[in-house]
């Protein structure tokens, strides 16, 4: 990675682009008037706050970009150790698990059985013992079932 891209340059650029997108969406959106003319003077419309926020995001994003360039590679947020590299894989697997859980939930509506399976998956991912995994998954699933489904009548149907 280039030296200048290591520090605050990228987050600043993301902030700047996000701000620009907000400004463009506000200016081109339907019914997103920034100011609404009244008989005497004008009052802020639905687009007023978003446009102010967008402009400020551009300003602060730009300041971060400049700071990132000035850091000239002295700050690196992705200086990963070997352990962090393997941790990143686990984090990615947790995220993938969450996505699969949500897809299956949407398709089947079997929320409680899925909670049980997901709890097992997470514990195996974190290399917990089988006995702990089973006890933890049963206790957590039972807790959610009795408190939310039975106690508070939440249906978890999507």
């Amino acid at each position, binding site marked *: 990675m280039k030296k200048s891209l290591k520090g*605050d340059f*990228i*987050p600043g650029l993301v*902030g700047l682009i*996000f701000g620009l997108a*907000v400004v463009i*969406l506000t200016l081109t*959106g339907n*019914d*997103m008037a920034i100011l609404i003319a*009244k*008989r*005497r*003077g004008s*009052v*802020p*419309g*639905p687009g*007023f*706050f*978003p446009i102010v*926020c*967008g402009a*400020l*995001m551009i300003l*602060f*994003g730009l*300041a*971060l970009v400049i*700071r990132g360039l000035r850091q000239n590679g002295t700050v690196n*947020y*992705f200086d990963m150790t070997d*352990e*962090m590299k393997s*941790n990143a894989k686990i*984090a990615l697997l*947790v*995220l993938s698990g*969450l*996505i699969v*859980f*949500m897809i299956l939930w*949407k398709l089947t509506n079997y929320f409680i059985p899925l*909670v049980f399976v*997901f*709890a097992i998956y*997470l*514990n195996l991912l*974190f*290399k*917990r013992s089988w006995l702990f995994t089973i006890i*933890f998954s049963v206790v*957590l699933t039972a807790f*959610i079932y009795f*408190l*939310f489904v039975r*106690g*508070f009548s*939440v249906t978890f149907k*999507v």
Partner: protein
Amino acid sequence: MTAQVWASALSTVCQPLVILYLIVGVLLGICIGALPGLSATMGIALLTPITFWLPKAQGFAMMMGLWNAAIFAGGITAILINTPGTPASLTQSFDGYAMYKQGKGGLALGINTVYSFIGGIISIIMLMLFAQPIAEFTIKFGSAEYFMIALFGLSMMVAVSGGDVLKGLLLGVVGIFLSTIGIDPINGTMRFTFGSVDLGAGINFIRTAEVLHQIYTRNKEQEAAEHEQRKHNLALGRVLPPAKQTLRLLPRTGIVSLIATVIGAIPAAGGDISAVICWGNSKKFSKEGDKYGHGSEEGLAVSSAANNGVIGGAMITMLTLGLPGDSVTAILLGSLTMYGLQPGSKMFTENADFTAQVMLLMILANIAFLIIGLLTAKVTAKVLNIAQPTVWAAVSILCIVGSYCIGNSFTDVIIMLIMGVVGFFLKVYNFPTGPLVLGLLLGPTMESNMRRALTLSRGSWSYFLTQPISCVILVLVVLTFCIPLIMDARKKRKS
């Protein structure tokens, strides 16, 4: 209210069944408050239909128990796993979690319990003594004043930026922008929803990012050492704050509780706003302000007193004016009506007996969570001093449950996931997430009231200066910015 009314109310609330329901409510409140993603509002909303089957004293005992305990319990997970159980506990995670990491988890839980109790009791005393004048004062608040209150809250953005003000400001503005997603509060226009009806209700934020980031930065050796250290410290550490310290902090937390009561009495201003305003200002004016956010016992005490101090204030506007002080009292108003009671000034004349019962129930709920909180603090700290992966697994699943229960919406779960990924990168890039939450919480109050005020004044910005209360709050905002700067300059000159 006469002594006879109080005596009759006391005899009712001391009945075994009422006490039993109160304790059930407190225990439920502790569970709900401590679970990330579940709030006191949600707990009361879920409990209300159940209480209709009970006599009103028992039903309200359960609800008062749940409400008071849930606000206090939000601090438990903020302290032990750096995940606020309720939005009002955000500032407790700044100092509480740092204390826990320093091996003072038991003491942090003790401070949370004791000062939540102090905040709660002071606000109830205010409710008993000054309900009418406070209600008359807060009813004068219009949109200009609400806007200024929100601005006052947002002025704390710098304080919660953790040293990197530029990144804090950028995220704060992003938070305010995210709060504009959904239905426009004045014109009803759909903004940035891209055709999604679910997005119309806006965005809720739960900290899944914390889990992903903790997995990513995990250092097994250090984790094992810290785990052992905490176990050792927890076994030796005290829970009850020292008497000397309690006495020293009493004036500050007393003032904070009074301010929190007034903030609570302002309709729609809740524990989240109160905690941020009180913590931020206390940091600015305290001698040990530098320690705030890094494990300050004073900072934690102030936050704890501030979020429970709101409850009495919210009840003032509900009981005297029939207006909801916050989202919980909005649901409680419905409950009162279902029991055939008319909230308003008649609550202190025709229904004085029941009003006295509610106040006494609130005191009992505070005593109950004080006892339960102190007795179980060490056990709770030990239970939650479990291996990090267990916490991650539980929080990942509870975040799904919590985000779904907020609005019974699958879209909220998807947003939770997206925010989790975005939040992960923000943490990697060392962004302070406090300002984002602050912007999300205060953005709607600020926007709707600013626009309403300008509509009323036909676009005249001087309206904010011509309204006396609004002008006073604006002066306070300016002073809270300037005084610390002047104090710093004087210190530098002296040194």
